[in-house]
């Protein structure tokens, strides 16, 4: 035996699944040693900056870079002429015509911030001066900024599509018109869901390096989806996938905003090439972050329902108009998700809704945590309370009557296996004291309200497959590497996936080191979105761990003349399956693998693609996810009717997470989502005038801070999903979906006032109270 075995670690987190193992990165984070792209410093690194349009809509007549090029210290300038002029987008698989953005535009600009050129210089001052010296001549075009203006005939045309409608998505099932006639009560609502911004604390930042002689690109990127970024770079730069290495370092938050390649990633590489291979760092300012990175879609959400007196939901129709801004990004699928999430939540056979993804000269809308579900969560769950009220039914009773059930297939062919929605509602009702409070605290101006939601665990949004891979490599000394393509952006996936791999291999968590999100080293993974990582990447880690275990058992069985099927590795020991008798320690088994006699490398491999069917966007049919997660959320509020201030007293979130791989991380995700939901309910509202963002900083755009958050209760419901790794589902987004509605419903319970347009502000409450008094 050559090396010291790692047995000293075996006592720590044996059987780690289900335990609150501290975050792998913990010590790095709290000491400041963990490196983000923001922290990358290299010798001779240049500062890159983007030249952006000051106009919301204009034709580009000319771009003259000669003065800037002559400025000492400027090392490279790139414009569209230096590119292949290939457009990029994020829905190319399902909606190829929505691939509509040039990394560097040469003909037309479509929003304030549109990129035309990029410079690299020795320092920031020089780069800024160079931007000022680039002379661009524009022909100003009239802009259009409101959804309903943009779709009028004769409105300024932003792209080629008719009436600025990039995508029309009809979702039709059954015969809702006929059922509406049979209904005892019909209700129609119109909601406004404002624009929120992901605004992660680490702004978008990248370092690009193009080794010119070997023609090899490396991009250090703060990305939620490094493989997606690589794919977009390869396509737009006409390179092979293995010419490009995207390295995801620690990511200072993403929340959907860092899912896509941005022009800055593309520009950093091109600038480096032009500068002879020097690394180029581009880091957005907070203002650029707010104005030029992807934001949540503002939506007008119209919904109409017909119900029977007994509460049976018969039919739903509606229309969703989404402000897409200048380019499509993930827009079409966000729109689809905003309409089709309801099938996971309510049993409905008759449904007709049409979505319109509308171009405007506002900044680009794309993915943000919740992916259409925050908007629909507010609209649908507010509406359902109105419906219940119409027929004099308790909102809980109404929901229990209409929610989906386990082991059912929805009208659009989603296969719901485990479904803890009913249990979630019941748990939240009991924990919150609903029956003692609902409608009984009006004298205190207190109210209680509910919202329910469901979420996917992955979604085939941009590719034909949505696979994840994992490699579990066991070293001679018993230490283990987990290589995963998954992108931990702070949710703790490196830790959770390591727990899964360790459990599958049968060893202690402390043996594992996780290497993630490096396109040259780690297996492919589509990225951190759609709450997919624990479920999909987790399954890959599970398979990788199991594969490594089998490789070890093969040697043990051979050497001991035993049948491999009779053996297993659990909690650091090789055991006999039938009676758990210990044959040898894990270290002994490994010693055997790496012995003179066998010399067998243990490299476990896992590849997982969820059992789904692609969505047919002409009908809305398709089982988009391998599993579905559910939740019920209850909010209790108190309203000051003099000032209009709504105070959230307490929140309860009961969540079907399948199985908590790491309960502490699950709670962290729930609490963070609830706080973000409170932000969206009360103050997260990116405002615009003629395409210009009016509140592009943390003073003007308020996000949740330490003061004013209520007590939050995470109630975990474990349904042991058969398809999930150790029973787990994903849960990064769902807790954010019904928060605004739960609060709005609680406000109505408290003071009888219904808010249809977010955010809920004191002036809206006062205005509504005045109207109520009239």
């Amino acid at each position, binding site marked *: 035996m050559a090396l010291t075995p790692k047995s000293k670690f075996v006592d720590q987190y044996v059987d780690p699944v289900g335990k609150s193992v501290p975050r792998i990165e*913990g010590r790095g984070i709290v000491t400041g040693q963990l*490196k983000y792209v923001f922290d990358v410093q290299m010798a001779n690194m240049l500062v890159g900056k983007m030249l952006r349009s000051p106009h919301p809509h204009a034709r580009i007549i000319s771009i003259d870079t000669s003065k800037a090029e002559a400025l000492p210290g400027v090392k490279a300038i790139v414009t569209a002429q230096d590119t292949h002029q290939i457009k990029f987008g994020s829905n190319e698989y399902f909606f190829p015509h929505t691939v509509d953005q040039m990394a560097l535009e040469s003909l037309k600009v479509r929003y304030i911030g549109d990129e035309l050129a990029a410079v690299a210089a020795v320092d920031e001052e020089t780069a800024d001066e160079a931007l000022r010296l680039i002379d661009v001549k524009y022909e100003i075009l009239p802009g259009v900024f409101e959804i309903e203006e943009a779709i009028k005939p004769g409105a300024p045309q932003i792209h080629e599509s008719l009436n600025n409608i990039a995508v029309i998505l009809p979702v039709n099932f059954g015969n809702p018109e006929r059922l509406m006639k049979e209904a005892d009560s019909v209700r129609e609502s119109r909601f406004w869901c404002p624009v929120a911004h992901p605004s992660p604390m680490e702004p978008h930042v990248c370092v690009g390096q193009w080794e010119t002689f070997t023609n090899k690109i490396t991009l250090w990127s703060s990305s939620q989806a490094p493989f997606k970024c690589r794919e977009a770079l390869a396509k737009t730069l006409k390179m092979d996938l293995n010419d490009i290495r995207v390295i995801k370092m620690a990511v200072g938050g993403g929340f959907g905003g860092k899912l896509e390649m941005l022009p800055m990633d593309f520009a950093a590489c091109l600038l480096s090439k032009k500068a002879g291979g020097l690394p180029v760092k581009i880091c957005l300012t907070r203002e650029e972050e707010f104005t030029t990175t992807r934001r949540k879609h503002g939506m007008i959400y119209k919904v109409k329902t017909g119900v029977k007196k007994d509460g049976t939901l018969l039919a739903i129709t509606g229309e969703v108009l989404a402000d897409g801004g200048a380019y499509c990004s993930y827009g079409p699928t966000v729109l689809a998700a905003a309409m089709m999430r309801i099938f996971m939540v309510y049993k409905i056979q008759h449904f007709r809704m049409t979505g319109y993804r509308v171009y405007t000269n506002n900044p680009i809308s794309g993915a943000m945590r919740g992916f259409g579900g925050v908007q629909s969560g507010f609209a649908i769950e507010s509406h359902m309370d109105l419906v219940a009220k119409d027929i004099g039914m308790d909102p809980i009773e109404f929901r229990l009557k209409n929610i989906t059930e386990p082991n059912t297939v929805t009208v659009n062919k989603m296969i719901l296996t485990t479904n803890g929605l009913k249990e979630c509602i019941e748990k939240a009702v009991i924990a919150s004291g609903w029956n003692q409070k609902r409608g009984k605290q009006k004298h205190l101006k207190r109210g209680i309200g509910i919202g329910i939601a469901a979420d996917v665990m992955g979604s085939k949004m941009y590719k034909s497959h949505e696979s994840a891979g994992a490699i579990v490599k066991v070293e001679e000394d018993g230490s283990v590497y987990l290589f995963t393509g998954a992108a931990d952006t702070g949710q703790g996936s490196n830790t959770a996936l390591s727990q899964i791999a360790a459990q599958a291999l049968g060893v202690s968590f402390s043996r594992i080191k996780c290497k993630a999100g490096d396109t040259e080293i780690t297996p492919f993974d589509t990225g951190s979105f759609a709450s997919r990582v624990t479920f999909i990447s987790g399954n890959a880690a599970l398979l990788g761990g199991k594969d490594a275990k089998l490789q070890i058992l093969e040697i043990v069985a051979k050497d001991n003349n035993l049948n491999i099927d009779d053996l297993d590795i659990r909690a650091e020991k090789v055991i006999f399956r039938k009676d758990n008798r210990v044959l040898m320690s894990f270290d002994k088994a490994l010693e055997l693998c790496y012995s003179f006699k066998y010399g067998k490398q243990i490299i476990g491999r896992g590849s997982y693609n969820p059992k789904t069917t692609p969505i047919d966007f002409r009908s809305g049919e398709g089982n988009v996810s391998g599993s579905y997660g559910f939740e019920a959320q209850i909010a209790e509020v108190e309203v000051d009717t003099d000032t209009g201030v709504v105070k959230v007293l307490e929140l309860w979130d009961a969540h079907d997470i399948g199985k908590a791989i790491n309960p502490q991380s699950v709670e*962290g995700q729930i609490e*963070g989502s609830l706080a973000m939901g409170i932000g969206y309910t009360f103050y997260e509202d990116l405002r615009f005038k003629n395409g210009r963002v009016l509140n592009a900083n943390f003073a003007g755009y308020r996000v949740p801070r330490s003061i004013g958050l209520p007590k939050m209760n995470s109630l975990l419901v474990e349904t042991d999903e058969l398809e999930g790794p150790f029973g787990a589902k994903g849960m990064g987004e769902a807790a954010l979906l019904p928060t605004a509605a739960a609060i709005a419903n609680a406000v109505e319970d408290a003071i009888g006032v219904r808010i249809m347009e977010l955010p809920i502000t004191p002036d809206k409450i006062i205005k509504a109270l005045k109207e109520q008094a009239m």
Partner: protein
Amino acid sequence: MEVNLTINKKPITLNLKGNETLLEVLRDHLSLTGTKTACQETECGTCTVMINGKATLSCITLAANVQGEEITSIEGLAQGDVLHPVQQAFIEYGSVQCGFCIPGMIMSSVALLEKNPTPTQEEIEYALDGNICRCAGYPKIFEAVREAGKKMKNGPNTKI
């Protein structure tokens, strides 16, 4: 100009133009990149360091103005290999998510607890209100601050 600073108890002499912020000096001149920034205009708290025990935003502090003061950055909290109780508590109570705000959050917490190791919930909220955590891990941050305070009050050997 020559600027003499005491950072994490070490005297450092730098040749500066004079308009550099403490943030720039820490990150760009000394490669102490534990201190982050997310806005560079006092709104996020990510760049918080301690000057003479007081939580201070390094993005608007001129380095030349804090000569002779005791400057502590996140790199100066641990004693050798032993983490500061606040650092330890942030790990144990799951207060870290993406981690980008955490160095600043920890500095604000230490500044609070050194003066007041048993803060009320309201005092914690006020002390940390300048530090944004976009992952919004606030409940677990509050818990860590409370527990670390107990340990600081009762001495370093207290088990939290």
